[in-house]
């Protein structure tokens, strides 16, 4: 499943970059994030819970920064599973930051997510819809965070 999108944030590109890699910012901005810990220079240990109606899944996964070119380009690879064993997933993402002028930064991402197991049967229709919502909430929270720090 290929997902892509673009978010626009106000702030300097360096600040946006810094915040995007900051575990504490991520855990407070990603909806449903219960734990995001940077365990070494490149690796994050994460637990994220998501809910669709009565169904909830809790993903435990590791994300590794496979390529970083501050403050513009980032590649991430992740792998993990649902705690209740409903599915296992691997994902690869590419994130690009670009200054748009007027103090705005465009963050575009492309993410290729492969899910196997029961979650895959459940349908990417629902997961995509959820991903869109998560993106909106994340953008809003991150923006507030960027403004909060000035």
């Amino acid at each position, binding site marked *: 499943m290929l997902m892509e999108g673009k978010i626009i944030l106000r702030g300097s590109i360096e600040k946006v970059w810094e915040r995007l890699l900051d575990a504490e910012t991520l855990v407070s901005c990603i909806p449903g994030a219960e734990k995001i810990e940077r365990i070494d220079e490149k690796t994050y240990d994460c637990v994220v819970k998501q809910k*669709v*109606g*009565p*169904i909830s899944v809790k993903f435990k996964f590791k994300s590794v920064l496979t390529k970083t070119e501050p403050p513009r380009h980032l590649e991430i690879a992740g792998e993990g599973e649902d705690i209740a064993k409903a599915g296992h997933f691997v994902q690869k993402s590419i994130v690009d930051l670009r200054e748009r002028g007027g103090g705005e930064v465009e963050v575009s991402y492309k993410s290729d997510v492969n899910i196997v197991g*029961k*979650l895959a049967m459940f349908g*990417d229709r629902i997961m*995509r*819809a959820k991903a869109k919502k998560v993106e909106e909430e994340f953008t809003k929270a991150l923006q507030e965070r960027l403004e909060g720090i000035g």
Partner: protein
Amino acid sequence: MMKDFEYFSPKTVEEVLSLLSEHGGEAKIIAGGQSMLVVMRQGLLSPEYVVDIKGVSALDYMSYDEREGLRIGALTTHRVIEKSALIQEHFRVLSEMERNLATIQTRNWGTIGGNLCHGDPSGDPAPVLIALDAKLRLKSLSGERVVALEAFGKDMLEVDLEPGEILVEIQVPTPRPFTGVAHEKLMAVQGDAGIVGAAVSITLKPGDGVCEDARVVLSNAASVPLRVKEAEKRLIGKVLKEQLLVEAGEVASAVADPPGDIHGTAKYRREMLKVFVRRVGARALERAKGR
């Protein structure tokens, strides 16, 4: 694998409501189970308590009178609605919709109320019933309330039901004279969930043929069944021609925010929504003219 749960099979609405109030958010209602068992089998849903209401016979009924309209008990099965002579005479579109809903086995056991409460935006009954201006009667220990079906969907698989509240009845008013309603969905095989679907209702003024009222409702076009008032505005107050239906389809497609998946990209769905609004609108118009 399914996790263990405690099973209840109450026989009256009162018993259902007190069980729900006793077990709070840990209890889940099952009616026909045609949607819920799937997610339970997949291990995605594991309620502590399952309240099986299939045996509450007081909620399995249909009645019609011209003034009161149609009343359908929440536990009426799809198959009963499909085959009902009453429905075929007064609400043909409901019978047509049911005929394309899943398989006979599912229609034999699945209930209209269960379908609506599951809150899947790809479901067929909701758009047709919204086009018919249906309302829902909800009941809890603290009383009853009636909500418009178009406001019932809150999000993907989420509906406006309070904890401890159940859907008891679907109420459909008698359509005004010169009203035509139609529904179609895009499917690869009959009975598939619609890749997209549209239900359109058109009411004409007697005599001059001007469109007095219209309702355009889409399935699988957003996180809830989507009524598109902007598209309806293109039709209301005008003598309907093919071009206006094309425009309504374009507006509906632009407002929609369809998902993309293995069955079709979001872009493909948008294109198909144009086609289906126009096509279903044309059929509703023919019916409104009495043809």
